[in-house]
């Protein structure tokens, strides 16, 4: 019955589709090619990642379960108008990298690692593992601060505005141990301060000093013994640099989720001006939480998603892929020869329910999925998707048959590290080609990674999107576990127009995270929301990027700020093909 409903929905959506009605930018485009060139080494941005090497009897298995940590955060930390990168490493003693973009200074794209001088290289030691990173302006002073998530306690570096950072984690109250794998910043209570949500994989036990070996999932399809999430409310006094957080997980109604969280994402899913949450969990069901607008959330998973799932949720990103004015959600899972889960492209039906259209749209299979990000790579006005995959590319021997023997052993205790066979030099879902799905604007995507030059077979983890060379085309930074990262510069030919918006909140949080821009053009309506780190192991640029296709003018632009202020910009003629700064309450300022 659900299949029939889905088919009917697709038919209905197709009838209503702007593309079918031939409206909007490049509605039925004679698509120009999408092309990328990999320039990581040439511009000084190729970084080798190292997973944490555990010691002792269970080193091998624990290493296998913690093979993430290769993350990237995109942000203009020095405020010079170009996007910089923070790239993590994870093994003890290995430094993280703060790659300062020299574009504004030299006119040429190039990066210099200034992590040591800035004081942000540390974080990996014998007892802690860096897993994710995030730029966000915790004290609303205009200087993006840096949060490093760890299997351990997090580190909050306050940006001093002079190229240096100060570790304020303890003063800020961020001293709670967690096995965090994901972190986002968003303003859940719309009080103008950015709060933090951590996604935690294992429950809070120190894996490096295991008191008890029973720390692994208690069920491989329905585990409830993971780390869940932790929500921290920003209580920094206005105008103060004395950043403070207090934990509100329980109070906010998020403590009952005890799954193996791999990613967390936020967005206004019901168009009420408040940020909602989607939590992707490994070994069991994802969760969708709707903001009650009173500092709490309600678990709407069953009614919104039609039930609980048993999949291996790895990534959350949100965008309005079909331009119907409602944010949709893309989740990667595992689809391989031995496991056919299929991803989920949750189409937002606008009535509190979502329908998975991944099969119908051709976005079901990204193999052993990790990060996936929406972005309009060809500037045709439709959000495309780039997805990375691949778990472990090592020796010729395959771990799966070995693992099978354990899985089917009667009475096996999955939670016990000692039950799991060592992986040694075996491969597991390795050498997988990345996927680039071009949005055809007809509720269908076409996979074209090879054609676009991004079909590498590394063990991908995170994606950071940004216009690193300020040319109006979205570039891609890809991190890989135990391998070098890649930087793909978008060199797509074509003359499609674009615009980028840098939003500055005044009453709202200064990063404008949660702000929504609605752009009308040729009868089509495009929405973009500023997000604070959606997507596994990768934060994309906070600049909003719109492809405009052949349209050289826009009809209107409206910004809905988290404070509730709605600003309609009357003068929009100069925005096309430019990066424009808009300040809350003041309109275009640059």
């Amino acid at each position, binding site marked *: 019955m659900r299949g029939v409903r889905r088919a009917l929905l697709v038919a209905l959506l197709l009838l209503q589709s702007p593309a079918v009605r031939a409206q909007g930018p490049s509605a039925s485009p004679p698509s120009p090619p999408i092309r990328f060139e990999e320039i990581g080494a040439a511009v000084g941005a190729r970084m080798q990642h190292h997973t944490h090497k555990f010691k002792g009897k269970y080193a091998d298995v624990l290493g296998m379960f913690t093979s993430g940590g290769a993350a990237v955060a995109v942000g203009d930390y020095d405020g010079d108008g170009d996007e910089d990168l923070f790239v993590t490493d994870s093994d003890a003693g290995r430094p993280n990298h703060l790659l300062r973009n020299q574009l504004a200074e030299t006119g040429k794209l190039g990066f210099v690692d200034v992590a040591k001088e800035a004081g942000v290289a540390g974080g990996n030691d014998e007892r802690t593992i860096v897993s994710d990173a995030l730029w966000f302006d915790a004290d609303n002073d205009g200087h993006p601060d840096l949060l490093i998530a760890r299997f351990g306690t997090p580190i909050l570096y306050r940006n001093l505005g002079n190229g240096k950072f100060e570790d304020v984690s303890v003063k800020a109250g961020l001293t709670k141990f967690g096995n965090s794998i994901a972190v986002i910043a968003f303003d859940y209570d719309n009080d103008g301060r950015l709060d933090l949500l951590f996604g935690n994989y294992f429950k809070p036990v120190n894996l490096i000093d295991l008191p008890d070996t029973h720390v692994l999932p208690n*069920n*491989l*399809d*329905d585990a409830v013994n993971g780390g869940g999430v932790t929500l921290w409310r920003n209580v920094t006094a206005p105008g103060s640099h004395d950043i403070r957080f207090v934990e509100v997980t329980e109070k906010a109604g998020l403590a009952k989720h005890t799954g193996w969280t791999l990613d967390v994402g936020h967005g206004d899913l019901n168009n009420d001006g408040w940020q909602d949450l989607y939590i992707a969990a490994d070994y*069991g069901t994802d969760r969708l939480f709707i903001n009650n607008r009173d500092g709490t959330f309600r678990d709407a998973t069953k009614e919104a998603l039609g039930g609980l799932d*048993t*999949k*291996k949720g790895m990534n959350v990103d949100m965008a309005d892929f079909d331009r119907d004015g409602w944010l949709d959600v893309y989740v990667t899972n*595992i689809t391989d*020869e*031995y*496991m*056919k*889960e299929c991803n989920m492209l949750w189409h937002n039906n606008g009535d509190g329910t979502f329908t998975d259209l991944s099969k119908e749209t051709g976005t079901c299979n990204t193999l052993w999925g990790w990060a996936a990000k929406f972005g309009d790579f060809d500037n045709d006005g439709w959000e495309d998707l780039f997805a990375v995959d691949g778990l472990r590319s090592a020796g010729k021997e*395959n771990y*799966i*048959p070995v693992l*099978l023997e354990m*899985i*089917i052993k009667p009475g096996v205790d999955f939670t016990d590290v000692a039950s799991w066979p060592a992986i040694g030099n075996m491969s597991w879902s390795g050498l997988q080609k990345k996927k680039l799905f071009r949005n055809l604007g007809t509720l269908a995507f076409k996979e074209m990674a090879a054609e676009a030059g991004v079909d590498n077979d590394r063990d991908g983890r995170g994606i950071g999107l940004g216009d690193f060379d300020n040319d109006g085309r979205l570039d891609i930074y890809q991190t890989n576990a135990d391998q070098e990262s890649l930087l793909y510069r978008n060199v797509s030919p074509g003359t499609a127009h674009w615009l980028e918006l840098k939003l500055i909140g005044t009453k709202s949080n200064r990063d404008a995270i949660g702000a929504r821009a609605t752009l009308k053009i040729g009868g089509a309506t495009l929405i973009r929301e500023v997000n604070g780190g959606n997507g596994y192991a990768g934060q994309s640029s906070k600049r909003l990027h719109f492809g405009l296709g052949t349209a050289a003018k826009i009809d209107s632009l409206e910004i809905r700020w988290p404070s509730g202020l709605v600003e309609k910009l009357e003068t929009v003629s100069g925005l096309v093909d430019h990066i424009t700064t808009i300040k809350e309450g003041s309109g275009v300022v640059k």
Partner: protein
Amino acid sequence: MTEGLRRLAILLVLAAGLAMSEAAGAAGVARATAYEDAMKAVAAGNHAAALPLFESALAADPDDLKSANEYRKAVIRTKEYDRAIAFFDKLTAQHPQAAYAWLNFGYTYVDKIPDAGSITQVILANNALTNFSKSIELKKTWIALFTRGNSYLYWPKIFGRAPLGVADLEAAVAISQKEPKPRSVHVRAWIALGDAYWKTEQPEKAKSTWREGLKLFPNNLELKARLARDGDDLEKYIYDQLDPNKRVDTNLAPLWEGE
């Protein structure tokens, strides 16, 4: 006629309720009554109420294929898989020589697969194989050999189980060839044997098996569909048929219907 088929024929007669002889005794009466009451509950749409009645029927006759078949159908409707698994676990412990009880125990795991997560599916499929093997150890019947052989084909190539499927399905086809006249249900083994050859990199043998099957069953659409395809098209078709996320047809009624 093999011992297995003779036993099957006897069971079918019993299940059809055609020979409620005095020899059947009290147990037979109890089984028949419970079965009839269960079927009345099913007809009334009350599948949950039918479950204990089918269980009573099976307790009286553990090898009763028809009761087990209807029981599993009701289990699928109510999604009471774990109850059924527990029931067959107990039944086979009490009647370890009941070959068809083991077979249906295996089928109960198969029935649960589409409603399970991807890793649980593997565990269920493996449990099913274990029980099919117990059934075969007790009696090498066509249905048990076909069932286990076909089950092997659902496993990804990486686990190397398709060659085991070839062996079972060749044995099943051999049993069916001993029949004086082909029975329509036997076409399944011809289809599956071709699929097994195809999955073990023997495409020519697969095609010739399907062709041979089509001579015996000239109207079979599944054989025709396979023979009409080649290369990637055929691969997609076969993998689509062997998708573990789709419910496998475990209805045994064709064994006694449409002959």
